[in-house]
């Protein structure tokens, strides 16, 4: 088999709902056929690929179960409590939303190293005194606009300036964080008393039904929307096709450049949403926010089973990856272990998780081949 394999396009096939991506060019009548053709050109194997994806997720769920057992055994009184689960899910939601955007970009054959810096810039820009004058709506709008705007710049230069994504987004990483430091002057900017409505969302008396934190709901909504767009729309199928084989997709009539541009806008939008969530959580914005988020997000996407070269991957896997990392953090802090030990264990667990997945996948592939 040559090149990156596997496009999940035909899994959803003819049952797909009408395209929801009105932003993209209206698809011609035989769009379906062309996407199929592009998919076929990349050498998809359809059904067995789906099983492989599911298997990877099963592996991750296994890791998660082991972690939960470890947590429950080492700190029986504290780990499996409602409060602690809320903490884990809340901490997972910010990086989780970013990971959703990152999954789109990576499946589409790109990479976005600027997410952490975008979060820093968006939280800072949205919490300046000048922005806060416009109230809560102004803060939210500003964070989203900065995220989308930076994503647009990334996408334009990558898609139409034809510079490698790695370089463009690393340049954005440097300049966005620089701008964030410039604007904030290195200060931690807190929300003033007019904008406490946002901060209140983090408090227990604002939980939905008194039990579910709004941040976790935002996370769930973003994941659900992301899943639908990726698996049930033309936009999603095009993402797989372009990531799998951009040349074949172009020959099949897809507007590869426009689509690539949109992928970075999606990532930027996710950064904007995550920034609002971070402002809710910390009541402040600072240029030190989002440090190394790009690595956390990419690590979650990779252990979630998405191919770094694009064309294959699942959103659920990425979300599981985020949950694994957040749970590890929580267990280590609960057990009073030092940061150094945490890092060692994190590295080991990443390798074990990926090895475990590969063994499962290989055994499966072996048995289905015979």
């Amino acid at each position: 088999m040559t090149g990156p394999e596997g496009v999940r396009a035909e899994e959803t096939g003819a049952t797909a709902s009408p395209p929801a991506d009105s932003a993209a060019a209206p698809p011609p009548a035989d769009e379906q056929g062309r996407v199929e053709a592009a998919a076929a050109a990349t050498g998809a194997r359809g059904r067995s690929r789906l099983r492989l994806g599911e298997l990877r997720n099963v592996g991750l769920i296994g890791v998660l179960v082991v972690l939960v057992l470890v947590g429950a055994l080492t700190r029986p009184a504290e780990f499996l409590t409602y409060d602690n689960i809320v903490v884990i899910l809340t901490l997972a939601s910010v990086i989780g939303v970013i990971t959703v955007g990152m999954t789109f970009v990576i499946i589409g054959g790109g990479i976005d190293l600027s997410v952490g810096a975008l979060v820093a810039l968006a939280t800072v820009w949205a919490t300046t005194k000048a922005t806060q004058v416009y109230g809560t709506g102004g803060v939210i709008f500003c964070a989203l606009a900065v995220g989308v705007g930076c994503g647009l710049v990334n996408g334009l230069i990558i898609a139409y300036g034809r510079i490698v994504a790695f370089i463009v987004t690393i340049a954005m990483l440097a300049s966005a964080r620089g701008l964030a430091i410039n604007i904030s002057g290195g200060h931690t900017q807190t929300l003033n008393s007019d904008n406490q409505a946002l901060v209140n969302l983090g408090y227990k008396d604002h939980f939905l039904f008194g039990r579910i934190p709004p941040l976790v709901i935002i996370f769930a909504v973003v994941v659900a929307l992301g899943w639908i767009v990726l698996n049930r729309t033309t936009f999603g199928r095009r993402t797989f096709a372009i990531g799998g084989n951009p040349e074949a997709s172009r020959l099949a009539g897809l507007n590869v450049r426009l689509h690539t541009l949109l992928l970075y806008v999606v990532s930027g939008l996710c950064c904007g949403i995550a920034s609002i969530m971070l402002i809710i959580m910390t009541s402040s914005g600072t240029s030190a926010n989002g440090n190394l988020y790009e690595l956390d997000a990419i690590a979650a996407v990779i252990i979630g089973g998405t191919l770094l070269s694009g064309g294959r991957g699942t959103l659920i896997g990425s979300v599981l990856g985020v949950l694994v990392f957040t749970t590890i953090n929580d267990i280590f802090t609960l057990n009073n272990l030092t940061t150094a030990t945490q890092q060692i264990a994190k590295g080991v667990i990443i390798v074990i998780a990926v090895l475990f997945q590969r063994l499962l996948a290989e055994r499966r592939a072996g048995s289905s081949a015979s």
Partner: protein
Amino acid sequence: MTSSQARDVRRRGFLLSGGLVGAGALAAACTSNAEPEAKAPTAAAAGGANDKPGKKVTVGFAGPQADHGWLNAINEQAKKEAGRYSDVDLKITEGSNDAAQQASQIQTLINQKVDVLIILPADGKQMTPTARKAMDAGIPVINLDRVFDTAQAYRTWIGGDNYRMGLNAGNYIGKRLGGKGTVVELAGIDTLPLTQERSKGFDDALKNYPQIKKVGRAAAEFNVQTGQARMAELLQAHPKFDALWNHDDDQGVGALQAIRQAGRKDFFMVGGAGAKSAMDAIKKDDSVLKATVLYPPTMAASAVRVARLLGQSKIMSDLAEQELPSSITLFSAVVTKENVDTYLPFAFE
């Protein structure tokens, strides 16, 4: 697609990005943090004959990148203090965390033949040779906070006392608890010597109180986001404890948020460094934050003063010595509701 078409698309792309830059310029109006500049608090007024204008002194100042509230305050304090003296000309470089870049910035100041150099190195060890070069060229160096490898690289060192910061935090907590209870520590970046010293001082102080037990410790990264995350987890790990020491007020903003979100009020919290937000909270007395241990950024103002005295060959009139001291270690005062008004003007944002 023909090449002319491709060029067309590319041109359109550039036009679009041009429009974006325009929109960005409009939005940039939103980045302002300006507030009517009214107060200009400077360090405690200097008195006596030393304050009278004397020989003109050119002072070079090189610090790291101001990416943290405290470092930012260092730059501001230096500028404000220099502005108070008509006989001081401050040449301040753009801060950098890159050792090579900071070395070249210092070299530029040496070439400009400044009279005295103030250096807050990004990394003390790495900047030692550069500082020695200045000393060899006859320019006295004032080493701010992060100490050089050898005393030959500076004339005078002025800095804070991380060990005593931990010591004072521990003793304050010990006394306030009446020598009995459980304590949790939220440290800063664990690999930094300053964090280790703060923790050692804290532990040493707690040894004075055998009935106080440190039950938990986690390390954040001096920013709000990790402060919030680690604190949220610590609160789960310890459903009940009596006191918390947080090493840094910047990450404390996040930690306080986590405490409010968990609705916890069963303990009191002591901060570190002396940020304005922390002192405001102490003054208002409406949160668990009851005190903070200073790591005074006014050391930069003191450095400018010492530099001026060095340049004018004057001495500290309050000491009996005929020369300026070679080392000045600042005291880490504990700021509480009772004395907060004294320190509030020097708090950093």
